[in-house]
């Protein structure tokens, strides 16, 4: 409700300029844009997103287990809960280490090859 109000007031107040061709082009430091902006982009964004979604899911699954941890200390099932959390975390860390070792987490591949003192 607030936001439409703000936009609405703005609509009443602001000047209505003419939609000239030049103004409506996207800003590229004064140059005319070349080609469409909808270009293909680096695949690394996507790999990061894949790793992210798995950890996201893992995070959502571990919160309920974490909430019972405190109770489990007093009622004697702490070993089970701890090993459960540990196993869960450890398995995903294996996945992370796999990606790490295979170099999927490197944003720029091969930069170190050109390091001057190597």
């Amino acid at each position, binding site marked *: *409700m*607030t*936001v439409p109000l*703000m*936009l609405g*007031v*703005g609509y009443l*107040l*602001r*000047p*209505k*300029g003419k*939609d000239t*061709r030049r*103004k*409506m*082009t*996207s*800003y*590229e*430091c004064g140059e005319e*844009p070349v080609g*469409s*902006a*909808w*270009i293909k*982009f680096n695949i*690394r*964004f996507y790999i*990061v*997103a894949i*790793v*992210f979604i798995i*950890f*996201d899911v893992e*995070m959502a699954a*571990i*919160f309920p287990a*974490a*909430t*019972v*941890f*405190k*109770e489990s*200390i*007093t009622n004697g099932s*702490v070993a089970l809960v*701890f090993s459960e*959390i*540990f196993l869960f*975390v450890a398995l995903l*860390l294996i996945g*992370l280490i796999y*990606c*790490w070792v295979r170099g999927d*987490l*490197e*944003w*720029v591949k091969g*930069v170190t090859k050109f390091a001057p003192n190597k």
Partner: protein
Amino acid sequence: MVQSAQFAHSLEGWFGFLPLWGWAAISAFIVIYFLALPFGGLATYIERKIAADMQDRIGPNRVGPIGLFQFAADAIKMLSKEDFIPKGGDRFLFNLAPLFVVVGSCTAFAVLPLSKYLIGADVNIGVIFILAVTTLIAPGLLLGSWASENKWSLLGGLRAASQIVSYEIPVALSILPVVLISGSLQIGTIVEQQGWTVFGENPATYHFWNAFHNPFTFFSMFLLFVGGLAETNRIPFDLPEAESELVSGFNTEFSGMRFGLYALGEFCDVFVMSAMVTALFLGGWHIPFLDIEKLGFALPTGLVAFIQFHVFMIKTLLVVFVVMWLRWTLPRLRVDQLMGMCWKGLLPLAFFNVLGTALWMWAFKGQSLMQLLMGHG
């Protein structure tokens, strides 16, 4: 919110159809109006003042006493700006995208524990609630940048989205130790447990600030802070808006109030993150070593709420100040450093902290450092 509960009760005759969640929405609305919007505005002023101080300038000083009404002037200026949508862009998404950002960051205000008696809605999934609503920001940035049909915007938006989603994991995992300690997701409960008083008996649930519960939570606090910085695109993690590379990043094509909405969303997000650090690790509304409700004599509830609110705000604004301070202290990271830091640095550390806290809890039967030192429990 005792008064408001009575107020709500008296209104039930008219608005009886509303369930608890409806009331939560309404109180969220009130909180947004009276807290989020002024804060969003004021934060720009504070930010400019701090920036000026650090650079030995005066900063805004024309509008009102010491330039205090600068934010109102800014808002009016933004409202009166012409606002246009690039020709090749996607009008619908262009209009929609800023709303995601604002809704995502402002809704989180509803569960911030301003005081024991002043929480918009102390829902029992409070922590998850904040994590959930702030995820709306990433699609907002991504869609907005796509809709502008601008290469800089798109690149900035993609960087922003992948940065935000990446750092969501360390943020959530650094909250996890707190959940382990308190066994609850309700923010009111979590804060209440962080009390400690030297005048009188401590209840068994009190274990002082979570940051000092054990060494691992101390590190978790910093992880949460760093992750929060990255999630809100603040320096040194402001790559999506890197002027030298990407003009202005995802909001290059946005003008007028739409740009204002993005800025508002960002500042609200900074506040939410700082409030989260305060509430989850720095004791929330508790004055250190002093519980104003256990002084031996009873203070009126209104006064308690008033004091607690101010304590909470002072702590939060101190964290916000650190955020703004860092802006003029640290250089910007490179994009590969940014991602590497998240996945290879913060994430393993956060896991380490979770396991360490769990081990500590197991070894010391859930007692905090303070309880061990003072021999309580």
